[in-house]
């Protein structure tokens, strides 16, 4: 039983970032823009998030899960900013979405490594593994489910699951979600109904960027070697 729980814990570790980024891809795809630049957005999000956490850990201004949450917020903002480049190109500039996405994918790792080298001197930014929760109080005592979900867990696991549920509700139950889907499926009809297709697509791509940036940091801040980037 213990060994199965161990396996499940590492499965979760790898599954959550994949899931968050897949949701990112979905939001963009559903609004009618192919977001091939997810990979680059992940790198940018991970980069700024890790850089922030690294600096804070050095100066002791912030620590613990407050630091992690701020880092996640920063990587989301970075993701939004970076993917807005894709949004401008794809929606306003009639650009080929494959090309602009590939371009952003090529740019991001180069930029991250370049800046990391300029600021820190090495390509890898070290990061202490302080975000692991050994045992969630009370909940870890639940038989079977306790060891599976609430031991050796990360806060980001629960954030990821929450995002999954929220995405499902937003996309199928809210006015915004339905409009987003209609912009992807039948933009002419959306336009005729008085909804701005451009706005919907912007929303899709920017949400996608935020989630991709988040996914990047989630992936990085718990990968085994604890020192991240490239």
């Amino acid at each position, binding site marked *: 039983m213990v060994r199965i729980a161990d396996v499940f814990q590492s499965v979760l570790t790898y599954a959550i970032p994949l899931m968050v980024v897949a949701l990112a891809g979905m939001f963009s795809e559903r609004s009618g823009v192919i977001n091939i630049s997810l990979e680059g957005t992940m790198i940018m999000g991970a980069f700024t998030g890790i850089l922030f956490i690294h600096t804070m850990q050095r100066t002791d201004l912030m620590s613990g899960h407050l630091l992690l949450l701020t880092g996640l917020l920063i990587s989301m903002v970075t993701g939004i900013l970076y993917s807005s480049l894709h949004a401008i190109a794809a929606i306003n500039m009639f650009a080929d979405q*494959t090309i602009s996405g590939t*371009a952003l994918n090529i740019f991001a790792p*180069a930029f991250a490594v370049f800046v990391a080298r300029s600021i820190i001197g090495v390509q890898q930014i070290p990061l202490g593994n302080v975000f692991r929760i050994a045992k969630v109080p009370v909940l870890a005592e639940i038989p079977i489910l306790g060891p599976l979900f609430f031991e050796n867990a990360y806060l980001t696991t629960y954030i990821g699951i929450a995002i999954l549920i929220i995405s499902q509700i937003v996309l199928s139950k809210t006015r915004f979600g339905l409009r987003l889907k209609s912009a992807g499926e039948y933009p002419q009809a959306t336009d005729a109904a008085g909804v701005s297709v451009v706005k919907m697509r912007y929303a899709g791509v920017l949400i996608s960027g935020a989630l991709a940036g988040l996914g990047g940091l989630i992936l990085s801040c718990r990968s085994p070697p604890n020192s991240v980037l490239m």
Partner: protein
Amino acid sequence: MNNLKRKRFSLTPALPSLISILIGLLAGIIVIVIADSSKALLAVRNLLLGPLYGIYNPNQSSLTGIGNMLFFMIPLLMTGLSVGFAFKTGLFNIGASGQFMAGSYVAILLARKLTGIPNSWRWLVALAGAALAGMLLASIAGILKAFRNVNEVITSIMLNYTSMYLVNHLIRATGLYDPLKNRTLPVQTEIPKFGLDKLFPKSFVSGGILIAIVIAIICYVLLYKTTFGFELRAVGLNRHASRYAGINEKRSIIMSMALAGLFAGMAGGMIHLAGVGRAIQVRDVLPPEGFDGIAVALLGLNHPLGIIFASLFMAYLKVGGQTIQTLGFAPEIINMMIGIILYVSAMAVLIRKLLSIRAKKQSETKALGNSDGELYAVHDPPDPGATAAAEKLPPESEDSTNMAISAVQEEIEEDKHG
């Protein structure tokens, strides 16, 4: 007829690429200045002129630098052709890396194991084997696309990893592994230099570059001058319409994917048979050549001849990047520049639109000064009767504006469909 002939030499389609290259270079220079302004002048000079003056040693002749550039051009050109060819036929071959890897492995395997064949001919067999390996790998994706409509992006990405892990395993299993250096054993067989080593002394240049350029030209002829190529492009524009027109669209998809794989496989073979001591590193990383190919193909507008120039330019940038590395600048600046260039060139449609608006305005102001019949002639250039009616107009400028408009419109149409 005259119109068509002159259109072929028009620079208009390449203009957006040239503009984006300029913007990218400018951005790169700005990054260099920000990074270290004290050495910026020297770095920019080295970046732009280094490839032409030889990099590793300032004493060597400029021809050595150009020879090295031609060597770096080989994989860029071949993978660029691979991706571009598939693009032209409506497929996105993101699996060039895997095909490259398969080709590299088979080339090394054949070069080392086929000791029965004389050394002077062995390279040909090894190269053919490399091409075949890439072709087989890519045709898996092609067959799945043709018969089961599986998205070729997904299958070829997955085949990338399949190929990489398989090759890493096979290197050990077939006794090609060098445990000390964690890579494949060296290969003695090499593609003959065809006298290029005398032209570019002391450089890495390999005869592969001539083969690659010949293949690019063959690729152009195949795509634009044969029925087969026409069918491939037609399927790329609209698969269903092509089937309606009697084209065997399944065969076309498989063939175009297989040929794309052939080019990528040959890229692997050429680089490892170039006689410069390249070997496959045994690690779990996809070779970057396949992804470079995407950038080259997009910059070259997916046109075989455009890809030749795009790959030459990228090789120039890569060699330039190595020269500034010696000054302490990170080579990533080059990748950043490539990213910016691609990003701007993605907006080619916008640039073309701006250009076409200008061209239209010019032609309209001209046409308004003449009679109605001539206005009609402006908008319908292919009609020979109408062109004859427009004889009174100054023929040169009028024709060229018409051509510019029709070329631009065609390109925009093409972009919409592609």
